[in-house]
């Protein structure tokens, strides 16, 4: 059978297409972005007209996916872990409304924070919402789980979470596809009150969700993705969740693990397996990527006194992603280390690209603020967050999407004036607009910089929801048009940029300065594409 070399995220995209989705909804975020990109570029998806354009943020994406499910069709919504915080309101309540067409929420966690602000574990959210969670251990499972997950969602009548982590998301392996399932027709929910969470209805539906927990657990017990492998050595049992199972296998290359192993890839944790383990093992080690979710759970769930170890006990580090070496240590196995890194090797942190417009903006901002004490610039999530590093050292905050505007406002409210926000174009439309509205309504004395490179650049140059709309949004929420400026961040305009900053810092009210220049990575990509079109006009 033909093997496709897929990244984990691509396997998920293909699984969704082959699983019969009619739409995917997402906002870009590492390590989840390529799921949606894969569907956007996939020929079969294009032929079928699967809806795949970017959403303004994860909450709008989630709600639209739920709407498609309401209308009877299968849909998927994808995000990075922190994106689920943005979508949390819709997410938690969608467990209570339930679904009509199958709905999968795919969340990509980022332990070790390769490209993130925290390493929260989405399994907590899944447990919080009380829905089933699928956690693939490899690319093939990622494909199969998503393809079959819509049916699971329809059978259990709730959204199903697929949780992956960076390593699976961005690792490639051979994947075998199965037949393509057909899309669903538009059919409204049988019960017209299903999605109306008025208290009386919500109470009834919530009870229904509670009652279904047993069914979810039974389904997990029967799941082919969970496997109880009895070992000869009874002293020890291992629960290996999702990708951690691979790190365990890596330590037993001859498939000769002497201990009882529970491979856990579908939640809730089946109690029957735990009871079995309690009979067989004196001690249980939990291998899990992220927070000690299962470790905490089983401590309470074991009916007799069994020693449990894992990330909480210190057998594994409490933070950071797992690997085969950490698992080896937890198993008491010897590990091998190559030569040391020579002392002369220095860090090479990421930096703004040469020629990037954010650089020119920061140079002007630094000069304009030079006469004030430091610590007045609040920033946001995007390439421009790199302005915190030398040589710029311009910004003093990066918290969550949109926080620059509102934190600057709060600091100005406290009397820190001037107070400046630096936000990117797509971050502004993601979560900055409502904050700007607050600032206008409160007549806050802030300067908002929208560093507009006309794309979502940090994640690879996706189309920005803000494109062509920023000035009209700002005037629309009530910013005085006399205090909205659009400048081109280029060295030759440096003096003009500094002057505009100075004038707007002096103005007591909300100012918006848009620095607009195409992302140079996006520009290079566009030029390559244009050249290709010119060379091969027929393609």
């Amino acid at each position, binding site marked *: 059978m033909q*093997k496709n*070399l897929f*990244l984990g995220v691509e396997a998920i995209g293909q699984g969704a297409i082959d699983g019969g989705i009619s739409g995917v909804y997402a906002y870009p975020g*590492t*390590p989840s*972005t*390529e799921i949606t990109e894969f569907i956007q570029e996939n020929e079969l998806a294009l032929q079928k007209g699967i809806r795949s354009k970017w959403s303004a943020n994860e909450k709008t994406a989630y709600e639209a996916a739920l709407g498609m499910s309401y209308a009877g069709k299968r849909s998927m919504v994808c995000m990075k872990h922190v994106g689920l915080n943005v979508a949390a309101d819709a997410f938690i309540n969608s467990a209570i409304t339930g679904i009509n067409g199958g709905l999968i929420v795919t969340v990509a966690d980022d332990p070790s924070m*390769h*490209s993130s602000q925290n390493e929260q574990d989405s399994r907590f959210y899944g447990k919080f919402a009380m829905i089933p969670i699928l956690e693939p251990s490899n690319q093939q499972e990622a494909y199969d789980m998503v393809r079959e997950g819509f049916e699971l969602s329809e059978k259990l009548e709730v959204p199903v979470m697929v949780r992956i982590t960076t*390593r*699976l998301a*961005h*690792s*490639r*392996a*051979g994947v075998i596809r199965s037949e393509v399932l057909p899309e669903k027709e538009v059919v409204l929910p049988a019960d017209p009150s299903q999605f109306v969470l008025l208290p009386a209805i919500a109470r009834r539906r919530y009870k229904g969700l509670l009652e279904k927990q047993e069914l979810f657990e039974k389904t997990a017990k029967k799941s082919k993705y969970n496997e109880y492998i009895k070992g000869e050595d009874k002293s020890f049992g291992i629960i290996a969740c999702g*990708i951690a199972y*691979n*790190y365990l*296998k*890596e330590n037993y*290359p001859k498939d000769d693990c002497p201990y009882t192993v529970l491979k856990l890839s579908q939640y809730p944790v089946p109690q029957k397996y735990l009871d079995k383990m309690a009979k067989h093992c004196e001690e249980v080690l939990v291998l899990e990527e992220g927070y000690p979710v299962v470790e905490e759970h089983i401590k309470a769930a074991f009916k007799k006194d069994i020693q449990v170890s894992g990330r909480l006990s210190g057998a594994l580090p409490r933070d950071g992603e797992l*690997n*085969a*070496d950490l698992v*080896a240590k937890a198993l008491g196995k010897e*590990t*091998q*280390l*190559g*030569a*040391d*890194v*020579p002392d*002369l*090797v*220095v*860090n*090479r*942190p*990421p*930096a*703004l*690209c040469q020629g990037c417009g954010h650089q020119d903006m920061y140079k002007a901002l630094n000069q304009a603020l030079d006469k004030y004490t430091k610590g007045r610039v609040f920033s946001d999530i995007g*390439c421009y967050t*790199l302005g915190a590093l030398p040589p710029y050292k311009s910004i003093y905050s990066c918290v969550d999407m949109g926080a620059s505007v509102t934190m600057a406002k709060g600091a100005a409210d406290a009397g820190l004036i001037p107070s400046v926000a630096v936000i990117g174009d797509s971050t502004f439309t993601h979560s900055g607009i409502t904050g700007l509205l607050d600032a206008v309504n409160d007549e806050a004395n802030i300067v908002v910089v929208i560093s507009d490179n006309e794309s979502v650049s*940090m*994640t*690879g140059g996706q189309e920005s929801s803000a494109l062509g709309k920023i000035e009209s949004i700002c005037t629309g929420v009530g910013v005085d048009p006399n205090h909205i400026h659009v400048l081109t961040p280029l060295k030759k305009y440096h003096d003009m940029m500094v002057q505009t900053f100075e004038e707007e810092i002096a103005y007591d009210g909300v100012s918006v300065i848009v620095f607009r220049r195409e992302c140079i990575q996006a520009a290079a990509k566009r030029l390559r594409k244009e050249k290709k079109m010119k060379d091969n006009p027929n393609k």
Partner: protein
Amino acid sequence: MKTDIILAGVGGQGILSIASIIGDAAINENLFLKQAETHGMSQRGGAVQSHLRISDCEIAADLIPMGKADLILSVEPMEALRYLPFLSPEGYVVTNTTPFINIPNYPDVEAVLAEIEKQPRFVAIDADKIAAEIGNKRASNVVMLGAATPFLNIEPEKIEAGIAHIFSRKGEAVVEMNRKAFKAGLDFAMANK
């Protein structure tokens, strides 16, 4: 057969294009493959690595354990040194000697090269210079691929076929130039390993 490779470089240098050629050849040989990449923030000029694992049996982990890599293939000399803890005592370092200097505190280049020469098994090649001599500086990654080929446990012809396949869309002249680059790297490694 099992080959565990750490590919190293700086974001934007295109180490993933090397990985995709090796991957193409491995899949055509019906080998198992896992390849963990770096996406996201570090791609902006930061240190990037990719773990490429090829085997005739199923591969468990996406990451290579410490001290187990058979090869560090680096397109930049300091980056080759960063991953030494991954290298097995029998492993090879194959690195480009042209530094990519995008940080103010880049160490003395001679000292970096001296560290590479301290390694028990290495190939240090000026891939940029060789690529320029062939007529296209952008072919330096393919020179590096050629230099790594003696250590891949895949026949050179199969890798060359991978090059022809990957570059075929760009026309015969581009394929030919990359073949030359590959050959030059391979010859250098055979003479200097």
